[in-house]
């Protein structure tokens, strides 16, 4: 059983559309990270959020950490084919101080031209 539940599992959209991916848990996390993984490669860190209610923007990507630090969302505006990939959320739970990451199962995003 995954501690972090991601939804949806798969998302296929047209270029220019918006999308939102969710990451939910019943547990509190000290910090939460979002990664993108492309075929044949390892995950690449997009962002780290540590404060409840925090919102971070990275160009067309907006990340939000829930007030209770149990959930997070990733919103992509005007998606492009280059946004295609597996989006993974991962978190560290208190009182762990060694950065042990618990990953969700991921959301596969496909953006078609």
């Amino acid at each position, binding site marked *: 059983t995954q501690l972090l539940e991601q939804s949806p599992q798969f998302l296929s959209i047209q270029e220019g559309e918006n999308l939102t991916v969710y990451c939910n848990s019943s547990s509190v996390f000290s910090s939460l990270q979002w990664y993108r993984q492309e075929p044949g490669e390892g*995950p690449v860190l997009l962002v780290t959020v*540590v404060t409840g209610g925090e919102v971070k923007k990275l160009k067309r990507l907006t990340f939000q950490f829930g007030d209770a630090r149990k959930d997070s969302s990733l919103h992509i505006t005007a998606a492009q084919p280059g946004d295609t990939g597996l989006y993974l959320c991962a978190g560290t739970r208190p009182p762990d101080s060694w950065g042990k990451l618990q*990953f969700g199962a991921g959301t596969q995003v496909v953006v078609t031209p």
Partner: protein
Amino acid sequence: EAGVAQSPRYKIIEKRQSVAFWCNPISGHATLYWYQQILGQGPKLLIQFQNNGVVDDSQLPKDRFSAERLKGVDSTLKIQPAKLEDSAVYLCASSRSGTSTDTQYFGPGTRLTVL
């Protein structure tokens, strides 16, 4: 700055055989991680080293998996004997200090198929 290097990239073996994977982390990174990523799932931490000491190996199947990080740099992960359910991508990652907000840099992984 060179990234995390892993070899081999692909390995096919039969069940009950043994296999070893190698990882070279980013220079100067104290923390090294091995993850197992089964198809359709997120990575699962197998073992975490801080320099050449083990910080967490709670999810490592110790009856068949072993890992070492000699001299606190390179690391090897071994499976002996392999089972069908070990088919997965094995990812190595490293970070500068291993804290909860430290960035982990992942290698490309080794795809293992056990027949």
